């Protein structure tokens, strides 16, 4: 038993080592840069100036706080709405019906499609000069592209949220469907025979049973939508910008001094995501202890 454990540890060691070096190494390097340590340009002082500048300077603070708000808003809406839709769809797909396999297949089809493709697809379909707008124009329902609501490149990140929902509904759906199918319907049957109506069964039985799985999927989706840049880069506006896009701007800035701000911003994003993961682990640990 003891030897078995040591053997497993030894076998895993090389992989763990590489991962640790890559992960913690780059994290450390990034952290140092965010503290202003960059020997390449002769900066060796260590301080929190970059953090302060990003968050509180006149130059950046407006962009930072509006970007943070937008990021939280987009991540929250994307996660919540896709989870809600996915539960609904999974409850439908759980039943046996003619053509179920096909329906599940189409539902899952979104999984392997890159986010970038979805974002570009959104532009082609839903922008003010996109396919939907033009078709409505042909039908005389909108007279000029301006009349079509700005579903992409809008200040509230609607386009970004829609793109994420499009994609994450499939991710949530697969997870929820798997949980539902492994649980079967007997718990709900018990509740029904004890007098619970459809809504009561959903609220007191189905939801609590899928909650642990749903929570972990939600944290993954929240962290992802909070920290990734390609969709907001394509579908977002110049102001406000989601934090990852803002961070990217710093890196693309030819002035090497902007590196520190870029890194500071990335560290802030990483920190927020880490906090979320800890909250998640706390919640799951509690629910696991409960049942």
């Amino acid at each position, binding site marked *: 038993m003891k030897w078995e454990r040591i053997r497993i540890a030894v076998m895993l060691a090389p992989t763990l080592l590489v991962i640790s070096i890559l992960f913690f190494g780059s994290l450390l390097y990034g952290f140092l840069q965010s503290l202003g340590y960059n020997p390449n340009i002769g900066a060796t002082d260590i301080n929190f100036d970059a953090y302060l500048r990003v968050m509180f300077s006149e130059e950046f603070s407006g962009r930072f706080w509006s970007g943070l708000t937008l990021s939280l808003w987009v991540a929250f809406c994307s996660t919540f709405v896709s989870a809600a839709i996915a539960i609904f769809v999974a409850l439908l797909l759980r039943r046996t019906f003619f053509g179920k396999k096909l329906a599940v297949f189409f539902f899952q089809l979104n999984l392997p499609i890159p986010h970038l493709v979805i974002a570009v697809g959104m532009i082609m379909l839903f922008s003010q000069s996109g396919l939907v707008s033009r078709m409505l124009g042909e039908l005389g329902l909108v007279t000029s592209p301006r009349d079509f609501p700005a579903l992409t490149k809008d200040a509230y990140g609607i386009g970004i949220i829609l793109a994420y929902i499009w994609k994450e509904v499939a991710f949530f759906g697969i997870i929820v469907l798997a949980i539902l199918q492994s649980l079967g319907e007997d718990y709900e*049957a018990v*509740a*029904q025979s*004890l*007098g*619970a*109506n459809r809504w009561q069964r959903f609220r007191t039985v189905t939801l609590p049973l899928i909650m642990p799985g749903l929570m972990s999927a939600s944290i993954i989706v929240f962290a992802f939508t909070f920290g990734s840049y390609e969709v907001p880069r394509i579908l977002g506006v110049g102001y406000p910008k989601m934090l990852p896009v803002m961070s990217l701007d710093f890196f693309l800035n030819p002035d090497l001094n902007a590196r520190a701000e870029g890194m500071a911003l990335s560290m802030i994003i990483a920190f927020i995501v880490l906090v979320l993961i800890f909250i998640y682990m706390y919640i799951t640990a509690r629910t696991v202890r*409960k*049942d």
Partner: protein
Amino acid sequence: MTHLSINALTKRYPGEEKPAIDSLSLEVESGKLVALLGPSGCGKTTTMKMIAGLLEPTSGDILFDNQSILNIAPEKRGAVMVFQNYLLFPYMTIAQNVGYGLKMRKVDQATIDRRVGEMLELVKLPSLGDRRPKELSGGQQQRVALARALIVQPNLLLLDEPLSNLDAHLRFEMRDLIREIQQEMGITTLFVTHDQEEAAVLSDKIALILDGTLQQYDPPMGFYESPKSRAIADFFGGVNFVTGTQDKGRFTSDLGAWSAPRGIEAGSGLATIRPEDIEICEAPGENVVSGNIVSHVYVGTHSRLKVDVGAHQFHVVADAGIIKTYGTGSTVMLHLPAEKIWVLPHAKD
């Protein structure tokens, strides 16, 4: 209290050729406990689910007090089903589990708390309300499941093999508890089991289902004393069968002529007698055969003998101490009391 009527109830699962349950008709008088007995896969759970409304019948009708309930939503029928695997909600405490049905009926919390206390008392688990289902043994979980069903004062209690996951000792205890509570509360109860002894001990009447069809519906004794077919006798552990001819209360076979007034009037027949009804006797006479003991098993409270009589073998349950008088190989005389012999119709082949 509810009188349950089942009329020609049939269920055919989609894509299946044979119905899982075929034209079942049954009357369960109010306040009675009826066992649905049958081997695995004979359609017992299917029947229960249809009564509870969790499954749509293909045809037929179900009535509570002469009112069809097929159009009543399952949650309004008041037919509560207790599943074989308990299915306590894992994220709730025991008290919350028991109180669930009342909570769904929007009963105030003080009443719920009081009734939960009563129910836990009833199933003899008074101090476990704050635990989680995981922290209970199988027997305790089953009792909680029972309390959770009883708290809503169901019209009809449907117990699907409530004892099959318990060890023998717990099973006896639970069996008594169920009978006790059922009689105290007077709830019409349908009880699924595949154990004939359990069915006999617990129920007022047994409905024996083999292969989707109802074979016999009688008080337990009927299945032992007057089974309607060889298959039924087999299911209830009948082992002694002799073919012959019945005529005016006399049954004639290669073992001679016996007085046998019960069963068919006349014609080709199959006489059967239960092992425990055969008596060992000292002198020849009416309905007495003689044979050789070929095996002998001591079971503590009694002994089981196998006795070769002519071309037949009889199983006999005798006193535990019989081994002192008759050993293996010895000759023994068996009295087959006329009123214990049951003659079934038998098609000559």
